[in-house]
């Protein structure tokens, strides 16, 4: 049914065109990327017939596979830790009052606001000093790599997770927790059986965001990764310097598919919960 506020005539046509234009901007590059990842030509942008060589190159290259597995390991590890810490931060800010709450709240948002490069340099300096100190104290001989990258990713992901979880918590009535406690639940059980099921979508959303950000990050990772330790985005970035080949397309398409799978999985998981 059309209403009086609905656009008509040329305005409607223009809006439609605008919509298509926006979609084209979004998706044309992705479509091109996918198409040329199957192109049998060394030059990106020249179609040389269909081939899966670039994909086999990618999966045959031990460097690439190493980078992919590093990326996945770091993404999973940093997501788990930042989801746990971010959720706790969100709970403490939404449900409790304590001294320094406002300061804590403000500081928690900092990693979202700080430019990536600044954060990267900070982290680089931090690990330089920190590992030296640990080395001097315990002689651990720590090197930059898995731990330094993971800790950096956790550092910014806590903020994102807590923002997402907080939004969910804010929409949840505190009455529910009181009702649980009135019905003989301990604080832990009230969380386990009432609060947690309510905020699961928020936690899942936060986890997904954290994982995507971790898989995606180039700037910070590049600063804090050690020699011989690289993640997939950093590896791709390195490839570009050597000249752009459709191998990059193949890598990018792989990343795209993986992240889309993650999104779909999380949506399915939430559906199942709701209906189950």
């Amino acid at each position: 049914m059309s209403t009086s506020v609905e656009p008509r005539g040329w305005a409607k046509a223009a809006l439609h065109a605008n919509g298509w234009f926006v979609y084209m901007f979004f998706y044309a590059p992705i479509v091109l990327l996918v198409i040329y990842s199957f192109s049998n030509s060394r030059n990106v942008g020249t179609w040389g017939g269909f081939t899966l060589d670039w994909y086999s190159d990618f999966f045959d290259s031990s460097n690439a596979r190493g980078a992919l597995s590093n990326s996945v390991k770091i993404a999973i590890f940093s997501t788990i830790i930042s989801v746990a810490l971010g959720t706790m931060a969100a709970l403490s800010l939404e449900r409790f009052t304590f001294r320094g709450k406002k300061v804590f709240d403000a500081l928690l948002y900092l990693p979202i606001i700080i430019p990536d490069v600044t954060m990267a340099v900070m982290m680089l300096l931090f690990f330089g000093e920190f590992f030296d100190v640990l080395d001097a104290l315990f002689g651990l001989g720590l090197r930059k790599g898995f731990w330094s990258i993971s800790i950096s990713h956790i550092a910014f992901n806590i903020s994102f997770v807590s923002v997402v979880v907080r939004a969910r918590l804010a929409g949840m009535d505190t009455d529910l927790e009181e009702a649980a406690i009135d019905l003989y639940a301990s604080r832990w059980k009230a969380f386990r059986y009432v609060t947690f099921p309510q905020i699961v979508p928020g936690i899942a959303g936060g986890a997904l965001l954290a994982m995507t950000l971790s898989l995606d990050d180039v700037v910070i990772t590049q600063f804090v990764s050690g020699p011989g330790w690289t993640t997939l985005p950093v590896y791709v970035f390195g490839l570009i310097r050597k000249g752009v080949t459709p191998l990059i397309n193949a890598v990018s398409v792989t990343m795209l598919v993986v992240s889309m799978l993650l999104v779909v999985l999380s949506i399915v998981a939430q559906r199942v919960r709701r209906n189950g």
Partner: protein
Amino acid sequence: MTSAVELSGITKRFGDVVAVDNVDLSIADGEFFAMLGPSGCGKTTTLRLIAGLEFPTEGSLSIFGQEVGTLTPDKRPVNTVFQNYALFPHLTVLENVGFGLKMQGIDKETIRSRSMEMIELVQLDGLAERKPSQMSGGQQQRVALARALVNQPKVLLLDEPLGALDLKLRQEMQLELKKLQRDVGISFVFVTHDQEEALTMSDRIAVMDDGKLLQVATPEEIYERPANRFVADFIGQTNLLEGTVSDAETVILENGISVRAKNGFIAGTHVAVSLRPERAHIQSQGKFEEGWSHVNGSVETVTYLGNALIYGIKLDWMDLEVREENHPGVELHRPGAEITVSWDPEAISVVSN
């Protein structure tokens, strides 16, 4: 007999704010007890103190003789029906009702049978597998009741239980709550800001204002013999005629006329005579019942309610509201008519500030 709930000298402060101020209160077993007052008067805080959701700053609180002031809610034999029901949205009706039993570690079979029994008692048979969001307000209310009662509390606490329902449903639920309370035989303590609801439902009412308990009495007593000006004004409609006590039988009104009014105040006390609109009677000027107090005035407004007429009366020094039942043959007075308002001296009460 020990009281179901006993508060003595209970005070609750939130920082500088005194939410509940030195309250003494005793609620009998099996009583339908209302806590009535305007919002922010401390009635909900008092209920939360009994539930254990707040702890008193001072005083002692016992349930069936056991001191519970600092015990957490799970250690008290009471359950609460929350204002907006606070049903767990991710659980079915059956799971909601069984929640308390599950938390107490009772076996699954017992939980199921007791929950189903309770669901039947509140007439929700066949809806056990629904989610709260798929139910009407009245049905949600019943789930909340079942969820509390299934734990067999010794006292049921209800925070504005009918506040979210529309008028017709609310009246139905009032009767049902009364019936339910008789069936389970425990005390119901409920908080409301609706004086009509409190009057129709409760055995006794506690009127609160500004953290203080003003009067605890039966609905009839509260209506007929309000403890003070606030109670008289808050419960039902009333006209407050300012005056000064002359002796135990007489009050001199502002305009200088004296009226018969039994009171327990010493001479010279500033008081108000509370005259309910339905207790006053209007007739053409000069006519009034033998032995009744009377004042002259004129009709300013007439509101026709169908079953009654509400007259706005202008006296020399103040305005009055008078309600006349619309009996057949009742004399109608038009705006501007000169009339006499009269009342039975036994039908008024005298209150101080």
